[in-house]
């Protein structure tokens, strides 16, 4: 819709495509600055501190100052590092996250690419991140980085399995992989969200609720694991591996990892939101409908989507500053011994329910 709007305005589909592609980037940058500030303030207030206070009101300029500083930093490539891979790795990691934003439906009017296989696409594209992290670990020629990268690869690949099982549950219920359609199916009030059984009719809806809830929990846990956050932040475990796979990175290259990390947090939250919590749909209906201003609705949808996404980002921060870190074998045990069986049984039960 936005694409058509720009295409009509500029008369060129190529220009319009470029603008559409740049919009998520703008969103990522603004969001990362906000999330970075939020992370420091949230952690500070949880810990009885104030957090950044000296730049701007309650330090809101802090991430900007960080960025200006990082831009000025020397870019070090260690002598024995593999230069090409070392430089390519952060780009690849960032590209993985950025590409995932293409299929995220921010509102009914704006989705970068309305793919039929949106869910699968996000899952596939975010796996590029693993390649980037492995490259970083290998190219740094640093043992900490290498161990961190190997841990990361093992972790992300393992946790994709329960994610896929839960996505299968959603597919069985909704019959679509398209994220926009998925959101549209959950329109109306929050009673139509998939976490509450979706738009399924009759008793099945009530039978579905507990299993959808389990699915949601499993999905959220594994998505936290996929974005390498505490308690699953083993690849960059500070107290063991210094800084993990980005130990050797400085300056802008490190900033790219920072961007990718925060962007990834939003991607996984957005995925959870789109699948279970109504996507961009408002929980109560729209002001635009009430006062009969149709163009307000997409803006409201964008607002609701961002709020829901940011809420889950906030939960991730909350977990990070509360919980200790798991050990690598416990991490794998959690995935293979608990999450995968639970997700699988959940899938079986939901399929059975839907056949009935």
């Amino acid at each position, binding site marked *: 819709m936005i694409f058509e709007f720009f295409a009509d305005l500029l008369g060129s589909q190529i220009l319009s495509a470029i603008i559409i592609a740049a919009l998520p980037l703008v969103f990522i940058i603004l969001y990362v600055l906000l999330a970075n500030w939020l992370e420091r303030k949230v952690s500070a207030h949880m*810990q009885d501190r104030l957090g950044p206070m000296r730049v701007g009101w309650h330090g809101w300029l802090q991430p900007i100052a960080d960025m200006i500083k990082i831009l000025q930093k020397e870019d070090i490539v260690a002598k024995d590092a593999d230069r090409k891979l070392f430089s390519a790795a952060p780009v690849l990691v960032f590209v993985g996250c950025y590409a995932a934003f293409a299929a995220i439906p921010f509102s009914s009017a704006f989705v970068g690419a309305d793919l039929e296989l949106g869910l699968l696409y996000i899952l596939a594209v975010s796996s590029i991140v693993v390649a980037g992290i492995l490259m970083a670990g290998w190219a740094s020629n640093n043992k*900490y980085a290498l161990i961190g990268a190997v841990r990361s690869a093992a972790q992300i690949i393992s946790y994709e399995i329960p994610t896929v099982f839960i996505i299968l549950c959603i597919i069985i219920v909704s019959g679509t992989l398209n994220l926009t359609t998925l959101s549209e199916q959950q329109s109306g009030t929050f009673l139509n969200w998939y976490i509450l059984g979706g738009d399924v009719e009759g008793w099945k809806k009530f039978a579905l609720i507990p299993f959808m809830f389990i699915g949601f929990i499993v999905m959220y846990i594994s998505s936290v694991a996929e974005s390498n956050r505490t308690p699953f932040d083993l690849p960059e475990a500070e*107290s063991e591996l210094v800084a993990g796979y980005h130990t050797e990175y400085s300056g802008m290259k490190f900033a790219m990892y920072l961007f990718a990390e925060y962007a990834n947090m939003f991607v996984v939250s957005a995925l959870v939101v789109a699948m279970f919590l109504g996507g961009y749909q408002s929980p109560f209906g729209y002001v635009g409908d009430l006062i009969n201003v149709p163009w307000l609705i997409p803006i409201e949808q964008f607002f609701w989507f961002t709020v829901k996404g940011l809420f889950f980002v906030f939960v991730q921060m909350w977990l990070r500053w509360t919980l200790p*870190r798991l*050990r690598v074998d416990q991490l794998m045990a959690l995935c293979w011994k608990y999450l995968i069986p639970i997700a699988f049984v959940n899938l079986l039960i939901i399929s059975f329910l839907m056949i009935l």
Partner: protein
Amino acid sequence: MALKTEEMVLNMGPQHPSTHGVLRLEIELDGEIIINVKPHIGYLHRCFEKHCEAMTYPQIIPYVDRMDYLASIYNEFGYAVAVERLLDIKVPERVEYIRVIMGELQRIASHTVAIGTYGLDIGAFTPFLFLFRDREKILSLFEMTCGARLLYNYIWVGGVSHDLHPNFLRQTKEFINYFKPIITEINNLLTYNKIFIERTANVGILPLDAAINYGITGPNLRASGLKWDLRRDDPYSIYDRFDFEIPVGKGWMGTVGDCWDRYYLRILEMEQSLKILEQAIEQIPDGDITSAIPKRIKPPEGQIYARVENPRGELGYFIMSKGGLQPWRVKVKAPSFVNMSIFGDLCRGHLIADVVAILGSIDIVLGEVDR
């Protein structure tokens, strides 16, 4: 048939976020599993024993402070006890009480750092900051008494440098009442956290016979199940007048002598310290704060080994006098140094993440390991 793998040598430290200072660990790894750990110490060797041979007896006290900088008062306490025994002097009653109050406050302060940084090692950031916030309250009590926050130079041979501030006892009581709920809070936040238990229970088990053979002392020994506390078993000062318990490890969450036991024992000890503090505040008499000792301390020829129960274990001073103003030789039994020597054995067969957990649980201070 197993695949042939190559071992990797990983160097941890001297700059590493969780080596508690400047310790270097040379770890031989097979994947993530540890084959061998070799600690390299001495990055903070500050020549304490050489300084002792060049200083007079009272001049040594500031250097003693800087050894175990998390429990300075206790280092002074031990040194003062040793020199006083060598000189055969008795200190006034009030001084003994002040020393005990200060020592127990220091024990709590030291254990808060141990527990906080242990949480940090496991990956929980917040308990560390909570406990540092509460430690500030103890430090302000010290500051009120002697003007220093960390290195006090407070306990002198034959007395203490200043009398207590008039508000000290009241504020200490307030602190005790403030700190009791904090222990519960930390228990809820960290101790009984499922992930924390998973990370620490059944990890780094220290059997009792090995602990005795390696001379391990303090909370680490008690966590292995032996009721051995010098405050009870070799009483010094006036510890025999107080009623307190000596907690021992029972393997609450796993095996006796694992990391969780060592961690939890410190929490229990803080509770006991609070108990001692309460009694000492009730009983403290008025009186002198220095005993009559000559200006120039000149012990007779002879030697003495005196020891006290430091927050980390048995802190002993072996002082050898040849009748001069300076000691001929001072050798310190540093609990961290001895506790550290078993570290390599504890780690074998565990994962990298456990190295950090084990190191944090034996709670070393590098200033004392290296002296």
